[in-house]
Structures are given as structure tokens and as C-alpha cells.
């Protein structure tokens, strides 16, 4: 068999002293001798543990009784072991080959793309559907507690305005989304536009004052709530939470060694991307909701037009569009228009005549500040519902 003789050091495990030795493999037997040829150890190769083959790095052979043989020339030891019939492990061999490494690059990219496009959304949907409603409710309550403590302020709507909005929505929901449990909350915001609404896990839909005022007396509010109830029924918040956790976990596997902060970037970017799909789904739900309650899809188009005009008013140097969670409103309008068979020649009213406060962002902001300063808009009311 192999007669390669390798130089090495023997450590007895009792002191740091090193003994120079020679190592040879003959017929599956390891022999350790002094440089003069005196036999020190003889053992069956199959019984011994040998450390991984890392290129030319030194490798160690562990002998019974705590003795260790270290061979500085790892490449030579790997060759000698191979000749003696002991091949490196599968992972060792993959790590040793450039071709395997390049294949791994391609495979990693494939796995990441597949997980991003199919795996994570499917897994998040599956888990979100199986989580008990109480867990979702609790997450929603927690989020509301934090939002109320920081960003949101009590609503400044009059009792009558609130009742009218509630009645309009309840009326539509009875027909449009009979199975979906929800509750409406009215709030104003401390900063930014308040022509908006959002859904929390567990079915809480928060309507901001600007939206309720801007859509008073028409079905755009119903369309927006239909959209939000779509988020609720599909458990989008829960899915978003799960997916951001998933992307974060994968990103930390890939980039965590480099920098934890860098690993956080893909998770953030991914959420903007995933939220686009969620918005489209909820838009489709809104159209279904409107139809179910005996309305046309037009209010949804108009509601999106309203959002677009608000976004345009705020667009002067705000966040770049690719960072917006409601991007490409024009695309969404087009999608809803096709889906709802709205006359293709229909254009957004420009400027929207009903969208009072949103046309004049300065006024809008003044409105927002009034309650905090106890202005004539009425003393701050405690949060309702």
C-alpha cells in the first residue's frame, strides 16, 4: 500500500512538549515512529479520529488516551489517507473544489430567490391561518397601545360624523363581508397626512380623521374599509410580521457574519416589496366588497385617486417612491379599473373636488395641531370605542 512517510509532532496531552515523529500508513494501520525509526504507536486507522481536510492546513489524528499527532502538511496527510483508503468526508470534498463552490453560489441564489418568491409567503400564509384569533387580537392590541402612545392622537371628529361613518360601513359590511369581524376606531395623527386608514391584526380598522372628513357622504370610505377588511381577512399584518421575521432570519444567515446592521437592510426592502402584493390583493377584495354590497367599483378608483392626490401634495422631497408602502398608485388604479369594469376613459378628478383638506396640505396640518393646543376645533376627546 502507501509508503508515504510524513513528518509530524506528537503531543501527549500531559504537557505542552512536542515530540517530532514520523507517520506512515501501511495496510490500514497507522504507525508512529521516532525519526530514528523506533515504533511509538501502532493502531488501526479505522479506529482513529482525524480532523477535517482544510486545504493545506495542519490536520490532527487523535489517538486513544489523549495523545494527539499533528501533521503540519495537511495536503500530504489527505493524500496519504486517501491512498490508505480513507477518503475525506463529503463536505470536505465539496469545500475543496472550486466547481462545487461555484455550483453552490448558483444554488444559493436559486434557493434564496425561490424562498423569497414562493417559500416565505406560503409559509407565512400557512402559519398565519393556523394561529389562534386570540393571539392575533393580542398582537393588534399591543400595536395599538404603542401607536396610541406615540403617533396617534384622539379623534377630533364630532360624534355625529363618527356615527355616520360607522353606520355607512356597517351597512356595507353586512352584505359585502358578512363573515369578517372588525371594529372601527377613529384617531388623528400627530404628524403627516391623516387621509389614510390601516388595519391591525385581529380586525381593528383605524380610520384617520382626514380620511373620514375627506370622504364624508360618499362611498370612498366604504371602499377604503373594504380594502382594510381585505387585509384583515387575509391576515396580512400577521403575514407581514412572519415574513419580516423570516427574511431577517435568512439575511442574518447570509450576511450576519459581516454585519448585523447590513443584514437588517434586506428585511426592510423585502417588506416594501411584499406589501405591494398585499395591497393589490386588498384592492381586489375592496372591489369584491363594493360589488357584494351592491355598489360599483368606482368608489375604490376614486379612493385611490384621493390617496394619489395626497401623495402628490406630499411628494416634494418626501420619501423616494420605492420606499413607499403604497407605491405605484397609478398601477393600482389601473388594476382596479380593469377588475371593476370601470369605463377606461375615466380619469381621476384632478384636483379632486371633495378632498377638501388634502388639497391644501398647509391647512391640513393646521387642523392637526388645533386639538393639541386646545384650539377652537374642540377640546381633545378621549379615544372612543
Amino acid at each position: 500500500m502507501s509508503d508515504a512517510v510524513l513528518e509530524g509532532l506528537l503531543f501527549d496531552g500531559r504537557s505542552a512538549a512536542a515530540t517530532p515523529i514520523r507517520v506512515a500508513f501501511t495496510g490500514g494501520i497507522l504507525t508512529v515512529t521516532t525519526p530514528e525509526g523506533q515504533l511509538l504507536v501502532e493502531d488501526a486507522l479505522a479506529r482513529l479520529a482525524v480532523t477535517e481536510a482544510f486545504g493545506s492546513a495542519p490536520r490532527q489524528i487523535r489517538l486513544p488516551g489523549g495523545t494527539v499527532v499533528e501533521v503540519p502538511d495537511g495536503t500530504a496527510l489527505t493524500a496519504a489517507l486517501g491512498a490508505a483508503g480513507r477518503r475525506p468526508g463529503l463536505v470536505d470534498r465539496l469545500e475543496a473544489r472550486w466547481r462545487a463552490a461555484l455550483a453552490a453560489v448558483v444554488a444559493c441564489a436559486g434557493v434564496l430567490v425561490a424562498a423569497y418568491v414562493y417559500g416565505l409567503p406560503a409559509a407565512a400564509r400557512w402559519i398565519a391561518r393556523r394561529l389562534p384569533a386570540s393571539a392575533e387580537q393580542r398582537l393588534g392590541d399591543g400595536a395599538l397601545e404603542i401607536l396610541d402612545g406615540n403617533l396617534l392622537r384622539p379623534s377630533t371628529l364630532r360624534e355625529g360624523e363618527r356615527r355616520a361613518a360607522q353606520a355607512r360601513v356597517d351597512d356595507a359590511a353586512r352584505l359585502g363581508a358578512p363573515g369578517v369581524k372588525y371594529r372601527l376606531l377613529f384617531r388623528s395623527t400627530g404628524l403627516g397626512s391623516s387621509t389614510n386608514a390601516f388595519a391591525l391584526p385581529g380586525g381593528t380598522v383605524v380610520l384617520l380623521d382626514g380620511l373620514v372628513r375627506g370622504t364624508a357622504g360618499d362611498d370612498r370610505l366604504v371602499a377604503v374599509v373594504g380594502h382594510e377588511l381585505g387585509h384583515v381577512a387575509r391576515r396580512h399584518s400577521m403575514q407581514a410580521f412572519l415574513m419580516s421575521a423570516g427574511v431577517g432570519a435568512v439575511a442574518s444567515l447570509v450576511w450576519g457574519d459581516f454585519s448585523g446592521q447590513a443584514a437588517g437592510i434586506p428585511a426592510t426592502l423585502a417588506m416594501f416589496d411584499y406589501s405591494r402584493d398585499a395591497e393589490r390583493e386588498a384592492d381586489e377584495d375592496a372591489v369584491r366588497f363594493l360589488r357584494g354590497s351592491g355598489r360599483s367599483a368606482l368608489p375604490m378608483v376614486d379612493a385611490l385617486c384621493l390617496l394619489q392626490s395626497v401623495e402628490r401634495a406630499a411628494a416634494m422631497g418626501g420619501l423616494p417612491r420605492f420606499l413607499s408602502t403604497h407605491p405605484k398608485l397609478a398601477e393600482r388604479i389601473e388594476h382596479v379599473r380593469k377588475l371593476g369594469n370601470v369605463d377606461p376613459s375615466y380619469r381621476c378628478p384632478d384636483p379632486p373636488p371633495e378632498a377638501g383638506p388634502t388639497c391644501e396640505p398647509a391647512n391640513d396640518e393646521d387642523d392637526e395641531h388645533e386639538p393639541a393646543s386646545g384650539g377652537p376645533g374642540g377640546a381633545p376627546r378621549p379615544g372612543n370605542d
Partner: protein
Amino acid sequence: MHELDAAAHAVPAAFTAAPAPPTQPQRLPVRFSGSGGEYFRIWIVNLLLTLVTLGIWSAWAKVRKTRYFWSNTQLAGAAFQYHGNPVAILRGRLLAGAFLVAYSVAGRISITAGMIAGAVLMFLSPWFFYKSMRFKLANTSWRGLWFGFDSTARQAYAVLAPAMVLGGLLFVSLAAMQRFAPGETPNPVPVLLVELAFFVFWPWLHARVKAYQHGRARYGSLAFELEPSTGAFYGVYGKAFLVALPFFVLLGVVMAAMFAATGVLKEPTAMKRALIPIMVVTYAVFLVAYAFAGAFFTARLQRLVWTRTHAGPVHFSTSVTARGYMRVWIVNGLLTLLTIGIYWPWAAVAIARYRLDCMTVEAGAPLEAIAAGSLPTERSATGEGAVDLFGWDIGL
């Protein structure tokens, strides 16, 4: 087994000398033989295996990657060996992962639950730290002898008690701020006082932890020791602060100029327009400040710690410089970002090579005299898992 003389060419001169104690300290060569290409292949193969096993292989990947670096680190002609058990690491990571999930879910359920989870985590952190140190050192060997961390959980808590007291105060003061209803102005004085205390005591706490980390380390029968160096820590922190100061002044000047240029002061709505440029400039200045002040701090701190560390007759020193670190960091950071992470394995090897090539080890007595120690082995990797997952890695 001790016919040493005839094999002078096989081992470094330091260990073939006659066993009589040398009068001159002997310089032990440090060599790092890893290569970026080799490590890239290991990294990418293990990354793929980790992804297709849904993260389970990450424990084996960690062991293989650590073993690659240790095997390629040679001191006096012998390599280091890492013996961490992947199954134990996997168990530790699963446990730490459960903690992490509980912690992040608690924070979303309510502020109180999040605070309780944070307090529990803070109370456990000295234990994690201690267990992690033990796991790291008790699973590393060189020349057939094992390293160890000769301490108890009680000692770890005693060392970290001042940090926990300060952390607890910060916690309480923040909690008090949270209880204010929106609109009311909370009193910021307690929080500022605690932050000031952190600022003042931080170098002392750092020196205390380093003295503990290095002082309880063992190699065989040798005990490591870090000379008392609290004053030197204050010196390094103070100088790093002075190095960073011009950048903060620069940031202030640039911000003021940008505010003036965009007209934010006259017209508050222009803030939106100025937001992105301000963010970009702030980030850029922070990165440059980090490259300068961070490199300065890292180099000075390593020099401080290693020149004052010794293990019996074995002394250490390092010649790392701020300039050297800056060069390695800037090249690494740029190439890693430009290649969306593909360059990272080369970067990791470059950092290891720089650090190790700058190390000097001098033995004032023959290494043959070092005997095996009697510390128990450490099998539980819970602390290691927590340190990995929460990103608390405090390198030696």
C-alpha cells in the same frame, strides 16, 4: 519519546533547545495560513447546506468555520484546534432562538410584557456571557493541552453587577417616561442622569470585564492575567473621543449649512425636502468617523489589553495600528458591499491575517514546562447560542 535533538529541522528552533531554562525570552512565531479562496469555498458550501436544512446546519457551519480559522493559526509550529460540539451548539441556538422569539413577541403584545422580557434577558446575560466564555475556551486546544475559563456564574454576576445596576436604572427611568400620556412632557432628567453615569463609568466597566475575561482564562496549568489598567482604558476612550470629536463638529457644521441651504428654518414644510440629503450626509459622516475613530479605538485597545496580558512566563503584544485597521476595514467594507456579501470570506481572512500577523508571543520559560490543567470540560452551549443570536460576541 524524547529524542528531540535529531529532529531539529522538523520543529521550530524554540522547542528543540535543551530543556534548561533559557535566559533570553524566546519569541514564538505566529503564522496565519488561511486563504480567502479556501475560506470562500467553505463559506459558500456551508451557507448552501444551512439554507437547505432551514438553518439546522448553521451549528455545523459555525464549527467548521471556526475550525478553519483555528487550524490555520499556528503558534510555534503547532496549530490551534477547536472542538465545539455542533449538536450542543444547535441545542444552544434553539434555546436562545426560543428566548429571542419570546422577547420579540412580548414586545409586540404590550409594553409591559416587553419590559419584563427585557429585564429577564438582562438578568440572564451574565450567565450567558459566562457560559459562552467557558464554551469557547474549554473547546480550544493547542499542543495537546486545553484552554479553559476558571470561573463560576457567581463571579460573572459579581463582575457584571455594576453594569446590571446601571442597566436597571436606565430601564426604570425609561419605563417612567413611558407612563406619561401623550401630550404631557415627561421629565427627561433621570434618563439623562443615567446616561451620563453610563458615559462616565463605561471605561471602568469595560476594564473590569476585560480583566475578568483575560484573568480567568487558563492554558493547561498556566493562568492568564491582565494587569490592572482602568486608567489606561479611560485614556483610550478619551483619546478615541477626541479623534471622533472633529467629525461631530463637521456633522454639526454640515447640518447647519444644509438647513440654511434648504430654508428649513424659515419654512418648516421644507423639512421633507431636506430629509433624504440630511440622512445621507449623516450616514456618510458616521461611516467616516467610524473608520477613523473606530480603527483608532480598536488598535489602541488591543495594544493596551495584549501588552498587559501574560500567562505565567508567556507575554503577548501586538503591533496593530489605526492606519492598518483602517486600510483593512475600508477595502473589506467597500468590496463586501459592492459584491453584496460575496467578498466577505476574503475580508474575514484579511482581518484575521492582519490581527494575527501583528501578534507577538514571547515565552520566558520552555513550553515543555506547561502541564495539563484540571478544569472540567464544558458541554452546554446555551450561552454560546445566546451570544451568537443576540449579537453579543465579545472577542478575546
